[in-house]
């Protein structure tokens, strides 16, 4: 876009006193943050219209850095706070960023029901397969057999498939990207932001500080390389067998369907309730 104004990230960042970020050097969280503000910039939304809500963990610190209406809530509950805000202010663009432990362990119930209701919230789950902030404990997406500080003999539990869960629960849009494929992540988040209804983007990332070190996976660069090597597009995945897809990250838009959004439906319910009440009053008067 040669004629368009150059993208200026500083418009969206609270640069004055909030940086450097708490995240480790090499963390994927900054890439997700970058993708989010690039997507918002491309859409052209105003900062006043946007709320960014988070829970607890490394991802929970993201709202501090952006100049929107921002709220850092309790562990796992970000989607429930967002549901209240979206219902109160259907005109606002409500975005929730969570980690895998935040969204799927302590917040798993809220995740399912936010998707089921199809509340108009964009949910970004940064999946790094571990509890990073607390020092590398097993999360619901830790691979079976991997080491964590609470699974010193290897994780016994199978990981929870985030995208399939959101699809089964009723999300309008489900997408998956990686922090290696940053430009694609911009586009996936943009699609999710523009979708009416509950839109999930799983941003596959890594934690070289805890998970990577425990499992001898190398530096951030090497873990990034692994994302590049293991990810396949949705289109490519269609031509692959289950055996070939083993251990692969399928990236792209996985589900996109039109389902009436909850807050908009509630607005119609209000109109109907008020009309029938007025009707009832009229009837009584007669």
């Amino acid at each position, binding site marked *: 876009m040669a004629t368009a104004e150059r993208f200026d990230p500083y418009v969206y960042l609270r640069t004055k006193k909030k940086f450097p970020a708490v995240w480790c050097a090499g963390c994927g969280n900054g890439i997700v943050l970058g993708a989010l503000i690039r997507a918002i910039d491309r859409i052209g939304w105003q900062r*006043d219209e946007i709320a960014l809500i988070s829970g607890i963990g490394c991802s929970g610190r993201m709202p501090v850095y952006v100049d929107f*209406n*921002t*709220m850092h*809530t*309790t562990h*796992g*509950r970000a989607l429930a706070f967002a549901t209240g*805000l979206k219902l109160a202010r259907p005109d606002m663009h409500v975005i929730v960023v969570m980690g895998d432990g935040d969204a799927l362990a302590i917040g798993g119930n809220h995740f399912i029901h936010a998707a089921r209701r199809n509340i108009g919230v964009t949910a970004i789950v940064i999946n790094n397969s571990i509890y990073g902030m607390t020092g590398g404990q097993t999360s619901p997406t830790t691979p079976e057999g991997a080491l964590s500080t609470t699974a010193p003999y290897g994780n016994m539990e199978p990981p929870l498939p985030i995208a399939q869960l959101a699809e089964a629960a009723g999300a309008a849009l489900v997408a998956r990207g990686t922090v290696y494929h940053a430009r694609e992540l911009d586009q996936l988040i943009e699609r999710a932001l523009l979708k009416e209804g509950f839109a999930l983007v799983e941003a596959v990332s890594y934690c070289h500080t805890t998970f990577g070190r425990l499992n001898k996976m190398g530096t951030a660069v090497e873990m990034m390389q692994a994302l590049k090597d293991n990810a396949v597009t949705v289109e490519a995945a269609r031509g692959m067998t289950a055996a070939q897809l083993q251990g692969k990250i399928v990236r792209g838009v996985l589900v996109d369907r039109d389902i009436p959004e909850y807050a908009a439906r509630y607005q119609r319910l209000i109109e109907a309730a008020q009309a029938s009440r007025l009707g009832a009053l009229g009837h009584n008067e007669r």
Partner: protein
Amino acid sequence: MAVQLMQGNLACAEGALAAGCRFFAGYPITPSSEIAEHLARRLPELGGKFIQMEDELASLAAVIGASVGGLKAMTATSGPGFSLMQENIGYAAMAEIPCVLVDVQRTGPSTGLATSPAQGDVMQARWGTHGDHPIIVLSPSTVRETFDLTVKAFNFAELYRTPVILLMDEVVGHMREKVELPTNPEVVQRLATDVPPEWYYPYEDGGADVPPLAPFGTGFRYHITGLFHDRAGFPTERTDEIDPWIERVTAKIERNLQHILLYQQDEVEGARTLVISYGATARSARHAVGLARARRHKVGFMKLQTLWPFPIDAVAEAAQGVRMVVVPEMNLGQLALEVERVVGRHKVRRVGRANGQMITPDEILAAIEEH
């Protein structure tokens, strides 16, 4: 408004609407469900929003989210759900988000007796969430008072930017009484800021105890967190920012006790015995006091409507010169602990019960006549 027969839970719901409540999020639980059921029908008629959430954790979270969006918001529950709400009571206290929680108490602990009354959540209402925090807790004993105190709860929540808990009980919640509700109760609107966004600090307002809370999406972009925060709302670990916050949120309640502490008392002057009660038990206590006075006992009566902050000075003054203070309550002495703290342990006669049965006037009368 006309005289009508009304249930306590309905009076609570109507009180909320009269106070301007336009958002309710909750999860079904006996004996509070009528509040949710009534608001599910009434709120959309008034342009408000009702949502049944997946649990009580989410219910209070949604309430706080809606309040941040500018709506007066409430949830209602009972003991087991109230336990789950503790985490976000702390969040609302820390972030200073106005909201109202109704706890129609039933017998606990745990599932306890789902349809039987209790007053066992008095201490949980004060100290249930972790850490020191301000809180206001009100408790009604009649249907009309339920309406009035629900309105007050919203007013206090907005005036002091704090969660306010209305402690009802199964008796008051399910009881039906003849009431005439006020048509225009005094309602406090949320304080609006008069500064431009670039001057706005959500946690500081030139020395005022309660800075105005600008709703999200109105041009004031700021940060809200459950971490300790500076005046702009951003996380801090600096004690020179944390201490003033603690001081201010304590002061915003302490400096307004005259307004917040609600109680009724009669014939406390010259009394030899003082009966202090609240909630449904105050009804038995009131009757017992009448019986005792008929037998020429000098008995003062004090009904507390504000339980927290505890009306220390009022209780001390009312108890001055009495030989005994009788504290009947449907628990094993939770508020009696506070009374003992104020008047001394030797003076207090607890009349407690936690088996789901009301305390009868005869039992209270026996305690009055014991010495």
